[in-house]
């Protein structure tokens, strides 16, 4: 059971990463490599502030702000200096590696026995169950701490999902969605496309960094390497989410992304349980994303061949 709770919690935390990438990759259509750097940025900033005794909430907020700044820089490199999308992202991501090392002062900060965002919830839960370290849910014994993290992350994820859905339905959010699909149209409608790109990347990387902050708090450490491959994980989650619920409305898309991330984490947990070598995890994910990108077109040709064959048979 703790495995399931763990996968759910991890999924909820990373769903913030996926939501951020939903904005950059899907809405504004910007292939943003900054993600790998900004998630670590979020983790390292939170780690440093929490270790120094700041409130974990405040630390998370700082992470969000720092991530936004990173995204903004990527956006400006692209719009102001006309550097290609991917290269802009690579530049910022590479710079962030050094910056993260600078922030942390070393490659790894453990966060043991510190206050995290879930500490408050844990205290309330403990009071409710009278100080027991485990809670019985439907016959399973769940550690109170794990449950507290799960509840806290659920609240955060749902809160952000609602805020984000509402934002995307506002005038500004509508224009932002349009900007990615048809830049010419939004320019003709008086929207500064470049501002939209910069804003979207700031928002996206803010969310990614926030995700990094929660991740560090949940894992109990911040590591300069932790961002590697996160972008592909996020992408895989988005693809699963779209496959689950489609993209017919904003609410559904966002719900789908969250569910997709959770499902993805569950799949990984199961795979690891079955003996998948953790070192192979990123390769398997990469292969999955490749398949998800290629399969739809492949299936279409296949079905065409099949129906074509049928028609031939009829004649």
């Amino acid at each position, binding site marked *: 059971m703790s495995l399931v709770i763990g996968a759910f919690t991890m999924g909820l935390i990373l769903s913030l990463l996926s939501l951020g990438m939903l904005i950059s990759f899907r809405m504004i259509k910007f292939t943003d490599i900054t993600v790998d750097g900004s998630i670590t940025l979020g983790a390292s900033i939170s780690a440093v502030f929490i270790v120094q005794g700041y409130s974990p909430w405040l630390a998370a907020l700082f992470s969000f702000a720092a991530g936004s700044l990173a995204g903004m820089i990527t956006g400006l490199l692209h719009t102001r200096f006309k550097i290609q999308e991917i290269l802009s992202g690579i530049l910022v991501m590479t710079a962030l590696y050094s910056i993260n090392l600078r922030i942390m002062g070393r490659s790894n900060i453990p966060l043991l026995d510190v206050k995290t965002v879930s500490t408050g919830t844990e205290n309330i839960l403990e009071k409710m169950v009278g100080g027991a370290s485990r809670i019985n849910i439907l016959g399973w014994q769940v550690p109170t701490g794990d449950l507290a993290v799960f509840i806290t992350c659920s609240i955060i994820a749902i809160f952000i999902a609602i805020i984000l859905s*509402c*934002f995307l*339905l*506002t*005038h*500004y*959010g*509508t*224009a932002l*969605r*349009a900007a990615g*699909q*048809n830049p*010419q*149209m*939004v*320019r*003709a*409608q*008086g*929207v*500064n*496309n470049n501002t939209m790109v910069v804003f979207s990347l700031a928002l996206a990387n803010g969310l990614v960094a926030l995700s990094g902050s929660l991740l560090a708090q949940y894992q109990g450490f911040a590591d300069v390497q932790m961002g590697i491959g996160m972008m592909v994980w996020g992408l895989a989650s988005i693809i699963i989410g779209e496959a689950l619920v489609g*993209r017919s409305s904003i609410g559904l898309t966002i719900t789908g992304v969250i569910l997709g991330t959770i499902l993805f984490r569950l799949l990984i947990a199961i795979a690891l349980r079955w003996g998948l070598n953790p070192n192979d995890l990123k390769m398997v994910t990469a292969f999955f994303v490749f398949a998800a990108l290629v399969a739809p077109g492949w299936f279409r040709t296949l079905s065409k061949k099949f129906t074509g064959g049928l028609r031939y048979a009829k004649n």
Partner: protein
Amino acid sequence: MLKIESLSKTFHANTANEVRALQNVNLILENGSFTAIIGTNGSGKSTLLNAVAGTFEPDTGSIHLENHDITHWPEYKRASLIGRVFQNPFAGTVAEMTIMENIVIAMKRGQRRSLHIAVTKTFRGEVADRVRTLKMGLEDRLDNPIGTLSGGQRQALTLLMAAWTRPKILLLDEHTAALDPKSAAKVAELTKIIIEQEKLTALMVTHSMQQAVDLPDRIIMMHRGNIVEDYHHEQKQRVRVPDLMSTFDRVQKRELFDESVAGMLEEQYI
């Protein structure tokens, strides 16, 4: 009023591909006038339209719209004064978004885009009423993605969207060229109706001389980056397609009339 003064633009300057797209063009469009620009390919007609729309900065000259010098305004800023319909029916709308959302984006042209929810009940009524005037039955499909509509329907909506905020000038860039003949006729008719109803100032690039004769009240002919003919007022009323053809012909003949012809005629034209 749109006032273009000695506007010039050379693309790929000082290269083998140098194109002098606009050469010292002067043009004044009165308020409420509907002008068509015709011309051969590469005559500069679309370049002139794009210069007003702001897709590039001119080399020299100025553009004034109402009381604003918009010469150096970026494209998105000009949009507060300008409505546009493109040749490509897919260019003016966002396929993945609904009719309603597309219109809402257009409604806010030139205004600050707030953090209020965009599609509200009160808007719905207004939008449905105006979409109904297109007589295409689209008012019942406001929540369908615009990508499910035909090119003609999309272009009609783009036109409606462009005219929504009563822009100071409406720019139409061969907006019926990519449509099938029936849809083209329908969109052309809507263009005339909307421009008349809203009393808009409009500038239309067209490849169809029939359209240039039928729709607007002024025709400008361009050739090699120059305005070579301007049919206005009474001249516009009597001008017919064959007249435009012969003017084209004349313009091209003038092109062929080079120094060697002049020399030959000096001998023989006595």
